[in-house]
C-alpha cells in the first residue's frame, strides 16, 4: 500500500518536471514572440529581414538583421571548418589508435578544455591569438571573424570529440573483424567502415557542438571586433547575433523600439538553435537504431 503511494508520488514528480521543462521552453518562445511582435507593430518585418544595415541609434533607426546574421553564419561556418576535421580525427585517434595511457591523458585534456571559462578563452584571443593572426596574415586588425571562429572551434571541440568517440566506440566489433578479415589495413577499416558506420553519431556530435557555441556570447564579443556591418570575408571585423544582444541590451531603454528589436534578434537565435538541436536529435536517434 505504502509502496504504491510512493510509486505514485515519484511518478507524478517525474511527470511534472518533464512537463515543466516543456512549458518553460514554450513560455520562453512566447515571451520572445510577444516582445518581437511589439517591434513589428512599429517597424516592418520585411525591413527587419532584408535591410542590410543595423543602425539602432541613428534617426530614424534601421534594424536590419542581415549583417548580424551574416556575422554569426560566417563565424559559425569558420568554426565548423576548423573543428570538424580536428574533432573527428581526435575522436578516431582516441577510440581506435591511442594506447591506453595516451587515451587517458587525451580524455582528461578534452575535459579540461571543456571546463575553460569562455572569458578566459576570449582573453587569450585578445592578448595572443588576435595579435598573432594580425601579424602573420597582415591584417588591419586581429579582432576579426577568424579569431572568433578559432576560439569557438575550441569551445565546440570537447563536445564533438566526446560524442563522436562514443559513436565510434559503439561500432560493432564484427564490422572491423570483417574488414580486417578481407585484408583491410587499419586506415582502410577506419576510413571505409568505421567512419561511415559512425556518421550519424558524428553529425549529431557536430550539431550539438555547434549548437553549444552558436549561443556563445563572451568570446565573440571580446574578439570579433564588434562591427555590425555585412562582412565580406572572415578576416574582417564583424558582429554576431549574440554579441549584439549582449552588447546593446544595457544601453537600451526598456520598452523602446531598440529594446524590442533585440528581442527579435533573440527570437531568430532561438529558432536557429532549436533547428540545430532538432537535426542533431534526429541523427542521434538514427545512429542508435
Amino acid at each position: 500500500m505504502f509502496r504504491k503511494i510512493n510509486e505514485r508520488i515519484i511518478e507524478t514528480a517525474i511527470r511534472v518536471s518533464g512537463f515543466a521543462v516543456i512549458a518553460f521552453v514554450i513560455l520562453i518562445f512566447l515571451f520572445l514572440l510577444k516582445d518581437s511582435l511589439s517591434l513589428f507593430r512599429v517597424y516592418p518585418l520585411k525591413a527587419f529581414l532584408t535591410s542590410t544595415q543595423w543602425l539602432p541609434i541613428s534617426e530614424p533607426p534601421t534594424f536590419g538583421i542581415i549583417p548580424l546574421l551574416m556575422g554569426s553564419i560566417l563565424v559559425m561556418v569558420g568554426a565548423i571548418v576548423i573543428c570538424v576535421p580536428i574533432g573527428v580525427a581526435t575522436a578516431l585517434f582516441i577510440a581506435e589508435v591511442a594506447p591506453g595511457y595516451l587515451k587517458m591523458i587525451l580524455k582528461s585534456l578534452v575535459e579540461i578544455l571543456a571546463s575553460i571559462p569562455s572569458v578566459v578563452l576570449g582573453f587569450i584571443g585578445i592578448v595572443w591569438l588576435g595579435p598573432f593572426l594580425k601579424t602573420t596574415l597582415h591584417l588591419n586588425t586581429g579582432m576579426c571573424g577568424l579569431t572568433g571562429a578559432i576560439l569557438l572551434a575550441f569551445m565546440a571541440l570537447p563536445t564533438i570529440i566526446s560524442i563522436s568517440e562514443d559513436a565510434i566506440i559503439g561500432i560493432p566489433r564484427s564490422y572491423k573483424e570483417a574488414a580486417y578479415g578481407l585484408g583491410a589495413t587499419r586506415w582502410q577499416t577506419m576510413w571505409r567502415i568505421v567512419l561511415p558506420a559512425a556518421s550519424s553519431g558524428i553529425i549529431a556530435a557536430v550539431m550539438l557542438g555547434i549548437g553549444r557555441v552558436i549561443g556563445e556570447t563572451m568570446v565573440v564579443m571580446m574578439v570579433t571586433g564588434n562591427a555590425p556591418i555585412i562582412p565580406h570575408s572572415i578576416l574582417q571585423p564583424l558582429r554576431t547575433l549574440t554579441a549584439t544582444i549582449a552588447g546593446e541590451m544595457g544601453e537600451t531603454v526598456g520598452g523602446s523600439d531598440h529594446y524590442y528589436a533585440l528581442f527579435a534578434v533573440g527570437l531568430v537565435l532561438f529558432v536557429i538553435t532549436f533547428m540545430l538541436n532538432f537535426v542533431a536529435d534526429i541523427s542521434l536517434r538514427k545512429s542508435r537504431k
Partner: protein
Amino acid sequence: MAALKTRISIENLNMFYGDFHALKDVCLQVPQNNVTALIGPSGCGKSTLLRCVNRMNDLIDGVRTEGRIIIDDQNIFSPETDVVLLRKKVGMVFQRPNVFDQSILNNLRFGLRIHRQMRSKSETMELIQKSLEDVGLWDILKDKLHHNARQLSLEQQQRLCIARVLILLPEVILLDEPCSSLDPIATMRIEELLRVLRERYTLVIVTHNMQQAARASDYTGFMYMGQLIEFGLTQGIFTAPCKELTENYITGHFG
C-alpha cells in the same frame, strides 16, 4: 582416390593468450579441395586455431605464437609475409553474418577497393555477378544491389559474406561456425553450398555440431583442451575413432 595435396601445413603450433596456453603442439595437414571440419567441445581452441591460419589473432593484444603454418612454401608467421595478401588468399567467414551496414554492392566492392582491384565498371559488375551466382544469390538480388545488406535474411547475409570473400578469388576459405545463427533449413542449404565450393577451394569449417561435420566434411579433426586429438577421414572418425576421447565425444558422453 587421387593423391592428396596438402594445402595448409600446420607444424607444432603453440599459441598463448598471455599466460594461457590455448593451442598445444598442433600438427595438421589440411588437404586441398576438400572440406576439413574441426570439432570439439566449446572452448577447446577451434576458433583459435582457425584464426591462426589467416593471422586474425594478430589483432588481439598479448598473443604469442610458436611453430609454423606453411602455405605455398611460406611460413605465414615469417616477417616477409604480407598479411594483407595472406588474408586475400585465405578468406574468413564468421560465426555471425557480419555484413557492413552499407549497400550490397558496397559490401562486395569493399574487398576490390582495398586490394586496388577496381577495374572498369563492367568488369567489376562481372565479378560481382559471378560471386553472387556462386552463392546462389544473383537471381534474388540482382535488382536490389543498392539495398542495405542488413535488410537481408540472416541466411542471405551469411551467403553475402561468403560472396564477399569469393570475389577476391581466395584459395582457402575458413568458416567459423557459419551456421550457428541459422535455422536448420538454411543450415542445410549452406552445407550444400560448401559441397559445391569444395571443387574450387580448400575449406576449413569449425562446428560444434557433429551431424554437420559428418554431413558436410571430408576430413575431420577432433580437438580437446587445445590439442588436436585425432585427425582423419570423416567417415573413419565417426565410425571407428582411434582414441577413446574422440569416441566419448562423438557418442555424446561429454561435451
